[in-house]
Structure formats: C-alpha cells, structure tokens
C-alpha cells in the first residue's frame, strides 16, 4: 500500500545486529538501550502513522558525551542513525528504518538555566515545548513558538523541524527564537553554535541547523529566547458566509497596518469537528471563521479590536464573538489546537502544510476543495491565515487502501498547487519522508544539489536520517 518508498535495509547491517548492540551496550547502561522486539515497536512510527519500520535498536543517551559516543560508534560501524524527540512529526521525520539506530532524547529532559535579565533559558533537547513556558510563566515570561503538539513535542524536535504555531505571526518561528545549540556531529564532535547573545559569530550555522531535520547532527542542548507575556490576550471569533470574504478580510487587516498576534482560519467542516470536541462556542451556521487574537492592556486591546471589527464589517462579517473570560479564551484555543486530534475522532486524515502568498488564499482554498472533491473525498481546512500557512485535512478511511491512495494523490496535487501559486511544500511540518519525492516540484536540480553538498559537508556518508528530505535518487555525497 505504501506510496512512499523506503530504502531496502542493508543485509550486512542486519546480520551484524548482535555485534552492534553489544558495541552500544559498552557505551550505555541497559536502561538506556532498547533492544527487545516489543519495546522497539514503540518507536516504529511517529504522527505519520500510515508508515512504520521497526529500528535495529534504540539508544537513549543521558548526556551530550553519551550522544557523542553513540554517534562515533555508529559512524565507525557504518550504521544509519534516526534522531527522535517525542515522535510527533506529521511528515514522518522520526520514522526509522530497519537498519538504523534510533537516538532518542527522552532522557535529556532537564531545564538547565533560566536567566530573566538576559531573557534566555538553557535546556536539554528532550524538554517539551510547553515545559519551557510552564517553567517561566510564574514570572510572567513565555517561549513563543507554540505548535499544536506543544504538550508532547520536544525542543529538539522543534529545532529539527523549525516548528511554528498559531502565534508566530507576531513572534516568529523556532529559528527566530533559538540563540544557540550544542550540536553533536556524526564524527562525535561536540560543537557549540551561537550562545547566549543575540547574534552568533561566523557563518549562520544556527540558521542552517534549525529546520535541517536531523540531517546535520544531533542537537543535545539549546539556548532559547523567552519573552515577557503581554498584560492580556483576547481571541475574537469572526464568522463569514464565504471563505473568500474571510480571506479578503485577512489581507485587508494586514494592509491596514494591523498585525494581530494570531489570525487562524477554519472552514465549516473544521468548525463543526472542533466545536463537537471542545464546546468552545464556535458559530455553527457560518461557512468560514477567523480566530483573531489581540494582546496588551485593556485599553490597547479595545482600540485594536475596534479597528479590526471595522475592517471585518467592511468585508461582510456576520458574527463577532469576543472571549469574555479566561475560560472562554482557553476553550477557543483548545478547539483550534485540538483540530487534528478532533478530526482524528471522526475520520482518518492526512494533513498538508503548504504555504501560499496571502493574496492567493481564496483561490487556493477554492481549488483545494475542487481537487479533493474530484477524488470523491472530503476536506476540512484549518490554518494560519496571517502567514498563508494552510493545513487542509483530507479525510479518508485508513483501512481502505484505495482511499488512502486517493487521499495521498489529492494531497500531492494540493502541494503542487501551493508551489504553482508562488508558495512552498511545507510551512512548518517539514519534508520528512512525506514530501521528499515532491522536492523537485519546488527546486531545480542545481538548488537541490547545493543543499545536498552542504549536507555532505556535515555527513559525507549520509548516515544521519538518510531517507528523508531529499529524493532517494540522484544524491550528492561530496
């Protein structure tokens, strides 16, 4: 059934499994090494659950030095390595292969230092995204990128994928909020890149590593920037009779010089699915809804909202509903952030992640509906409207191989549409295995070869997360 190819496992490596595990057990205590079939199975996939491969073994180092020792061993043994945070990747970034060692960061989950004067936190890579904000929220600070999976996903995984979230319209994505990393290379070398200052020295390796999907090394520690929370925040629901009106409203708000902290879009199917789950008070009789959040003191929020409501009224808004309490605010965001999970209760789905210029949103939304309908399937749209990052959820039945094939084909058509519209294949989920074979839609051979030569400067033998990001054929090794 698999449309996405995996490389054939190297029989030489499989044959040496016992020897490789014996080598690892010299470097790690028994409780840091997962070898039994049952336990390894827990690592066979991530959030792209249609694809699974049981790894050779799983190493769970406790320190940067142990990570370095394991990587050095893997390089010497010629064994592939698949880094793993919490395994919440929607693009298959953490899916193993049979001849690979998974290196999981779950035992490196400590917050090492908090410094409010310099507004930084130093963490180990296995700390969850939400744990950083929770550690500093009593003092009024937060870590800005907020992917929907923030309860589970790790900062190491966020760095691998350059994760975003609903509030990055104002605060930027992971790459704008990380100041330094400790990177362990495939040679087992430990490199400090960036640090506690605002600018890193030399070439911007930090910018290169964030979003490199575990292909350049394993990040074991990071210094992230924290921000002071606004005095208050209030989401407001705006209901429209058409997606086009909602899309035009988004463009008009930005054009008027207003950049709210978040502007989230849901179409009717998404509203109904999320409302049934979260009971957030979403309007059910509209075709499209925007969740727009403003921040600041009471008078500032009032002033900004007034401008936004005026613009929305010029674009035919039918329902305006402000959050009136912290509980309502929490429910509104619970509904939005659980969109994927709530959708999973009604159907299986695949989630696309293309980004398009915001002026193209109405056209791309319309074409998305047409494409999915042409395959006889349904779609729910829920996405970050302010920055054009779309998330069409294509609903299908995973037990029907024909339907899965159709859903994947529709998804690929939508991503091609995003590229044609001047956008890209993935805004925040990463390429992983899922979009690997579409890279040539967006990039020329020269573009890809330049990326691959940079990759090879870090990992000339392609041992790190090797089946991801770049098409399996035509690879450049130096």
């Amino acid at each position, binding site marked *: 059934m698999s449309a996405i190819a995996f490389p054939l496992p190297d029989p030489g490596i499989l044959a040496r499994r016992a020897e490789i595990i014996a080598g690892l057990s010299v470097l790690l205590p028994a409780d840091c090494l997962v070898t039994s079939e049952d336990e390894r199975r827990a690592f066979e996939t991530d959030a792209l659950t249609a694809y699974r491969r049981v790894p050779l073994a799983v190493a769970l180092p406790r320190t940067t030095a142990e990570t370095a020792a394991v990587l050095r061993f893997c390089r010497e043994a010629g064994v592939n390595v698949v880094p793993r945070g919490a395994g919440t990747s929607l693009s298959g970034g953490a899916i193993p292969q049979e001849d690979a060692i998974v290196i999981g960061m779950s035992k490196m989950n400590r917050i090492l230092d908090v410094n409010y*004067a310099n507004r930084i936190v130093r963490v180990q890579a296995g700390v969850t995204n939400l744990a950083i904000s929770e550690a500093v929220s009593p003092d009024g600070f937060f870590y800005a990128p907020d992917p929907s999976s923030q309860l589970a996903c790790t900062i190491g995984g966020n760095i691998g994928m350059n994760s975003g979230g609903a509030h990055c319209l104002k605060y930027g994505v992971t790459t704008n909020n990380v100041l330094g990393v400790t990177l362990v290379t495939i040679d087992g*070398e430990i490199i400090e890149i960036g640090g506690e*200052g605002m600018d890193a020295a030399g070439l*911007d390796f930090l*910018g290169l590593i964030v*979003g490199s999907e575990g292909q350049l090394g394993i990040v074991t520690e990071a210094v992230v920037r924290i921000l002071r929370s606004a005095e208050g925040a209030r989401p407001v629901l705006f209901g429209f009779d058409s997606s086009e009106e909602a899309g035009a409203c988004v463009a008009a708000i*930005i054009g008027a010089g207003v950049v709210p902290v978040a502007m989230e879009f849901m179409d009717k199917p998404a509203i109904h699915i999320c409302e049934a789950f979260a009971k957030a008070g979403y309007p059910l009789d509209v075709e499209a809804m925007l969740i727009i959040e403003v921040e600041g003191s009471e008078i500032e929020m009032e002033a900004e909202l007034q401008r936004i409501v005026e613009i929305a009224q010029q674009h035919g808004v039918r329902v305006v509903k402000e959050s009136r309490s912290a509980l309502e605010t929490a429910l509104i965001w619970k509904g939005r952030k659980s969109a994927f999970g709530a959708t999973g209760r009604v159907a299986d789905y695949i989630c696309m992640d293309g*980004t398009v210029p915001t002026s193209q949103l109405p056209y791309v939304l319309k074409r998305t509906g047409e494409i999915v309908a042409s395959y006889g399937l349904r779609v729910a749209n829920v996405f970050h409207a302010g920055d054009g990052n779309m998330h069409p959820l294509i609903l299908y039945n995973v037990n029907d191989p024909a339907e899965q094939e159709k859903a994947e084909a529709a998804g690929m058509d939508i991503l091609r549409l995003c590229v044609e519209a001047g*956008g890209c294949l993935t805004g925040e989920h990463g390429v992983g295995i899922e979009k690997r074979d579409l890279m040539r839609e967006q990039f020329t051979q020269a573009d890809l070869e*330049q990326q691959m030569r940079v990759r090879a400067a870090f990992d000339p033998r392609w041992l790190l997360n090797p089946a991801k990001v770049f098409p399996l054929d035509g690879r450049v090794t130096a």
Partner: protein
Amino acid sequence: MIRAARADGRTIEIKGGGTRCGFGRPMQAGVTLSTHGLSGITAYKPSELVMSALAGTPMSEIDAALAANNQILPFEPMDHRALYATTGAPTIGAVAACNVSGPRRVKAGAARDSLIGVRLVNGRGEAVKSGGRVMKNVTGLDLVKLNCGAHGGLGLLTEVTFKLVPKPQRTGTLVLEGLDDARAIAAMSAAVGSPFEVSGAAHLPGERARTLLRVEHFAISVEYRLGELSKLLAGYGEARLTDEQEALTLWRKVRDAAPVADSAHPAIWRASLPPTNAAAFVAEINAAGLLRNHFYDWGGGLVWLATEAHALDTGAVHRAAARAKGHATLMRAADEARARADVFQPQTRTLMDLTKRVKASFDPDRILNPGRMYAGV
C-alpha cells in the same frame, strides 16, 4: 562571468554600493563584480508584507517604496557611511550579505530573521535559489540564513526577499540620565523584559550619561506604555520623554555607531554578548588601557568600542569577548591591520573545518570574496 573567472583561475570581489568597503578582511581579487546593474524592486504586494528586490537596488529606493505604503523593513538596518566615511548608495544586497541590523533588533530580530528568500550564483557559476516569498517555509535546508552574513563568500546574491512590518503609527523615547553602565544595563533589562514591547534600548555613557528606551505602536499604546515604563523604572531616576525629532536623531546615531565613529580612533569593534556580561567586558578592556570610547545597544547585548591601536595585535578584545560568552568583530581599522589581525572572532578548529567544508560546497575554488571573513577560507 563567475564561470569565466573560475575557468581563468581569477578571484572575484563582489561590490554593491561600496559604502561598507571597510567591513571584513581586505582582499586582492582579480576581478571586481558590481551588482550595480542588478537593480529594481521585482515584487511588492503591501497586503502580503513581503518585498523582493534585485541585490543592487539602492536602500533609498526600497525605503521610499515602502514608505509610500506605510511599511518598513523590521530590523532597522545600519547605514555604514558615517563609520567608513564612504559616499555612494548602500544596497539591499549588502544588507542581506552582511546581516545588517539596527536598534530594533531587540524586538524585531536581525536582518537574518526577516530574510525569507534568496537567489544567488555560487562559485561554480550555478544559479541557486532558497526560500521564497512566503512567510513560513521549512522546505529543504535553509540556505537563506546561511548566506545572510556570509559576506558574499558562498554566493553572489542576485535577488533577496524580505518580510516587512507596518510602519509604527507613533514613536516615543524615554531618557534616564546619569546611570553608570551596570545600572543602565539593569534598567534596560527591566524595560526589555517588561510587557511594554520596548523596540530600542541603548546607553550612551559619559559625563551626561543617557539611557534611551523606545516604544513604537499605535498612538494610544505608546502613550500608555511610556507611562507604565516610567513607573516601572522609577528606581532608576526620573524618565524624561524626549521630543520626537530629537529622538529620531538619537536613534539614527545609535544605529550608525556615531558615538564611536570619530575618524581619529584607530580601531572600532562591535561585540555581541549576554547583556549582564557587557559592563564587565568593557571594564576589562578599560583596565587593560585599551578603551577610548564605547556605548551599548540592544539592551546591553551589543557593545560598540573604540580602542587604542595596540588592541589590534594582542587579541585582547576577542579574548575578553569570549570570556564574556560573546564574540567581537573588528569593524574599522587600517587595511594592513585588518589583514594582520583577526577581524571576526576566531573559531574552534572543528567549527573552522566546517566553515571550510561549507565554503567548498558553494565555491570549491575559493573565487568569491576569498579571505573576506577568515584567512584561507
């Protein structure tokens, strides 16, 4: 042209407007390649907050086009003409190639945070693109950031795409007077760490020391936030609201390093470090008898220093910056001094090996701006 130069074994110095020509190590290149002919805004839709321009487009043209739509580049790029006593027109390509930012960096990030797409020609003569013109894009390796601040050593940028922000409706600046460096940095940390979104925090030491704190937003917000900030900082003395025109001039001076740019100073440095280490870093340089003048930007996270000439040969500034968990760049000195001394912070061997391998991946024969950042790279 790059292919021809490569075939002939000639090296290339990339030149934009020539206003930043004292930045980096001096080079003797076979050919100078100017981006003068690559000029013009290629795509700009105000409602998308995104603008693309060819690399040689003068900043004045960019600023005017954005101003007509009440928008700005978020990161307030420095104009280097005062520092280097150069004339001519700074270009958008050099802003990207040198990661040129300004005081708003504390709130809005550096040039590298707003640069979302590049087209370049690498040292093999191949046209390569990375990123695009959408605000969120994680497709493939981020060669955009890698080239931002690479000083043209990986590729000749031909077209760059930046995110924009609306021009703030109003700007207000508070001034605290008479603080010493450490107290000023504490005040700035309190201000930048407040909910009032300070968009500039600089300290100009001296007999009449002034600490500047800027807020930019809607008129109603600016008024409210300045009031709240004054209350928050009451322990540091009375905060005076400056006249908007005077504030504009002050921030331009901070942006362009004017307080240390006096042409008589033999060496000017720019150090990036954690704010709480900045005052001790300056004190160390001063105790060594090297300090002539200095000031702080980015809430203390950026220090501009003018030093004596003998700081050039000792590595003292780089060592002090490293001890302060930061790094320093020699921004201005005579050509022979910049050829002799390290201009950028010396790197560990591992990082230098990586730098060389990445350089080779773009420019195997080292023909593009060779040695601009590091000797032999």
